[in-house]
């Protein structure tokens, strides 16, 4: 189906590109999570608190 | 072509979510742009990308993106 330029076996393959991509992804996740939780949610009005008394 | 036509299409498609959210992100830095300005920026960005893509490749022996 595809033309291979070279054969890469199990022991000689390090998925460094995947690690780089996924590091970027998790950085985005963390920033977005903090933003959503602390700015959009806790910064919003009328937060439901425990029943008084 | 520096990248294949299919590759170019994919890159343009992936630029769209970035452009759509550009206004929101800029707004948090107190930069407000209108819808028309966003469309304009988008058109410019895509135009630049296409120009870059159709420029003759410097590395002709590697048929990437096929």
């Amino acid at each position: 189906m595809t033309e291979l330029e070279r054969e890469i076996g199990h022991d000689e393959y390090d998925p460094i590109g995947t690690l780089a991509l996924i590091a970027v992804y998790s950085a985005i996740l963390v920033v977005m999570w903090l933003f959503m939780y602390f700015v959009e949610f806790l910064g919003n009005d009328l937060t439901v608190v425990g029943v008084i008394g | 072509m520096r990248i294949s036509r299919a590759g170019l299409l994919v890159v343009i498609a992936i630029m769209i979510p970035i452009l759509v959210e550009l206004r929101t992100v800029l707004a948090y830095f107190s930069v407000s742009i209108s819808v028309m300005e966003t469309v304009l920026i988008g058109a410019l960005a895509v135009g630049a990308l296409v120009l870059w893509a159709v420029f003759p490749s410097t590395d002709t022996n590697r048929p990437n993106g096929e």
Partner: protein
Amino acid sequence: MNIHTYEKLWLAAAMVLIVGFIATITYGSVGVGVAMIDDSEATLDPNDLGEDERFAEPRVEHVGDNEYEAYVVARQFIFQPNPIEVPAGSTVTFYVTSADVIHSFSIVGTNANTMVIPGEVATMTVEIDEPGEYGILCNEYCGAGHHDMEGLLIVHPEDEFDLEGEE
């Protein structure tokens, strides 16, 4: 089973992410004091709301210094009472139940949002600081007129508020 070092790294990072998420939520609950809708109120028969002293007459009651309780009935396709009126600078507890199907009681643009299930009473306490108006809507499909189901929460300036029936 050999797992590549990078994938082990990611596995560890993923666990940190997961624990971090749970820790954030726990902080919201314990540190900030965000309470969940729970099972604190007993069940009741939705057909007999007329017999229930809280819901026979949906209303707002003044129960303490700055504390108010709102007894709200959601039914196809209205909220009672409407509008709900409270003063600014108060703590309001909503008791919401349904006379028919499942609804929601959601104060638009805020975190105050609960499901309303027939037979159950949802309780939700919020602190309201500023005067203003909030829309209330039902966000659970409840029948053909679902999109017409709305209400209003009016927060009056403290000195202009006068609850009906209070001297």
